[in-house]
């Protein structure tokens, strides 16, 4: 018999056993950046194995990179979480492939609840005085680490002018929820009612919220738009 053939067969057998011995484990890696493209270190990245109920947790390194290896076949939920940012969720089906995910975390949204009490005797609340906005004080740059721009520095907006909504006369109680966007100049750019509230209440609430002013929200020393959800409780 041809010895070349024997050798080839043996070689094939050896390589195929090598292939069989490798189980199907996935590697999930990637980087996490904020919306300005700067790397986010210290983000908690979790792969929740829904098939087995186990979770695999790792934090991004100084360059915003993460790597999880040894993920068994199954369906996963990938989560990335950093305080100040919106939590990222993604469903993944892993079957031995290596996946790379570059994730952008969006800046979190503000939440505010205002209660307006129907008290005819009370004087209508005057607009608060306007505070001077804080300077965008970012201090000396922390410098780059290994070329990646490090992000994740958020200056939380502070309200510098508040206007309380006025309870409309003879209106029933109700709750108005508003989705607003604070622009880079600190003024309210958009305000939309998101629930089904009486007209008089929504007018009053929108009217007040549109007059609010904020310090701009700073992400890595640059002003960014930020979403705000306001709940006005008329009672």
């Amino acid at each position, binding site marked *: 018999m041809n*010895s*070349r053939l*024997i*050798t*080839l067969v*043996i*070689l094939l057998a*050896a*390589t195929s*056993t*090598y292939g069989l*011995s*490798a*189980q199907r*484990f996935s590697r999930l890696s990637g980087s996490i950046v904020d919306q300005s493209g700067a790397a986010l270190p210290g983000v908690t990245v979790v792969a929740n194995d829904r098939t*087995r*109920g*186990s*979770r*695999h*947790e*790792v*934090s991004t390194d100084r360059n915003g990179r993460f*790597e*999880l*290896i*040894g*993920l*068994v076949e199954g369906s996963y939920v990938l989560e990335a979480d950093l305080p100040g940012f919106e939590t990222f969720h993604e469903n993944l089906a892993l079957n031995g492939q290596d996946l790379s995910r570059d994730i952008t975390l969006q800046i979190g949204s503000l939440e505010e609840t205002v209660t307006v009490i129907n008290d005819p005797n009370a004087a209508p609340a005057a607009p608060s005085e306007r505070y001077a906005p804080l300077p965008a004080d970012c201090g000396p740059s922390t410098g780059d680490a290994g070329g990646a721009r490090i992000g994740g520095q958020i200056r939380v907006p502070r309200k510098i002018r508040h206007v309380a909504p006025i309870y409309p006369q003879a209106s029933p109680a109700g709750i108005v929820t508003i989705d607003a966007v604070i622009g880079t100049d600190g003024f309210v750019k958009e305000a939309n009612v998101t629930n089904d509230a009486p007209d008089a209440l929504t007018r009053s609430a929108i009217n007040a919220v549109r007059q609010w002013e904020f310090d701009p929200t700073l992400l890595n020393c640059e002003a960014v738009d930020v979403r705000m959800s306001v709940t006005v409780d008329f009672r």
Partner: protein
Amino acid sequence: MNLLLEFAIKISLVVALGLLAASVLHRRSAALRHWMLTASMAAALATPLLMQVAPAWRLPVSANVAPVDHVSARELTSGRAPRIGITTSVEAESRIVSSPTAFDPTATLIGIWFAGVVANLTGLLIGLWRLRSIAARATIVHEGPWVNAARELSDHFGLRTPTTLLQSDRPALLVTWGFFAPKVMLPVDAASWDEDRIRVVLAHELAHVRRHDWIIQIGSELVRIANWFNPLVWLAASRLRLESERACDDAVVNLGVSGREYAEHLLDLARQFGRARQVPIPAVAIVPRPSNLERRVIAMLNARLSRHPVSGAARLATLAALLAVAIPIALFAQNTFATLSGRILDQSGAVLPGVVVVATDRDRRVKHEVRTDGTGQFEIVGLPQGGYSLQASLPGFQNFDEQLTFSGENIQRDITLSIGTLQETISVTSGPSKAPFPPGGPYKPRPANCGPGGPRAAAPPQRDGAVRVGGQIRQPTKLYHVAPVYPDGSSAGVVRISVVIGPDGYVQETQVTNDAPPALAQSALDAVRQWVFEPTLLNCVAVPVKMNVTVDFS
């Protein structure tokens, strides 16, 4: 286990590569094929060394287990405590009860491998010893046609060290061996051979000497012995031997002997030696083995075959090509993933569901977390090699903490969680002594409220093969409290006492654990010994529980 497999597979790949190269080069000279196989054997020998230096390679096969101190504490305030100014909490403390894996196949496999190596190595050593003893009995040939031919051929081959010719007393022994002082052993009737045969045989043997075939063959034998379980290595070793003989056959033909004539010599020698009993000797020889005779004769009669020795450039080129493939194979480290599984029990042997088990990969800072299921089982799959800390925690129990090293092996751990420790701190100020609380007493403990039918009735009905689920702890409540009295004229101080509360609720053992003034210690002990608790129940059975009391005299 996985590492052994990885080891074997890598060597198989490297050796198979050499065999494949030898097959592909079947029209080229035997010397080239021999060189390829030698290089692949050397690469196989180097593979374990390369794997050692590669960063991905991690050593031993079995898991190291080292216990560590406890880490964190868990608070569990008992209901009654605030009223008497005592904080009672359960503190975690680690206790490790892990059962060894029942059967470790790795150790057995290593044992089998080692036994095989010893057996094969013994065979080789016996062969060498036999060669030595035959040589000791042989006489050195100083003159005659053999010596003349040897001198002439040595000059022709450019051999610097003279080759010793030995005349043995055996009829069928014609072998060459030795690296620094090469020797050729001639059979008993060698003196009567005709000049042509002497020249042909000596040319072949001296070609071996020139090509260092003997030491290469010994090296390949060592590789074969270490990989005795691997048929590919056996194949490569025998092919190497064949190619070395064919390369020497070619060297003889290159001297001007015709292929046909040489083939006749080979057949004659095979006929003559075939009648005698062959002893296995680790040396190279012209006399064909029966299995190789046909191939060598056919190769001699085939005039189209290349018979050139390998040039230095060809050697370098083939070696570079082979190493370029073999080194990545050796260095390639497949990530092997292990599974950690086991069961978690309380100290009564009942399984604990809902225990959070966390394996933290200390190198990669990855936490793998899972909860035990309804039968107390847990399994974490896909743990890469490295050092881990394994933690198991359940409220009311001491935290379990253990250091593990994974090297691709699966690990099975059955963990027993011990019931937590009570913690109490009392402040005593100098002044009028307080009455015992509540006055009177001692008190009867609450009934062990484990269902209508008494303590055991609440346990879930036992099904066949079902596991007993545990983890029900009734926190102890203090029934009778006596405050320590501040001793007159004593300085302030802190007394720490380690207490064991017995299953009956009475204080069983007390021990002062710090260096406190004797007056304070005595006062604290006097008070603590009078305390009465409801028994601590684990799955409706009263168990002793440890308690640490801190009395602060201020």
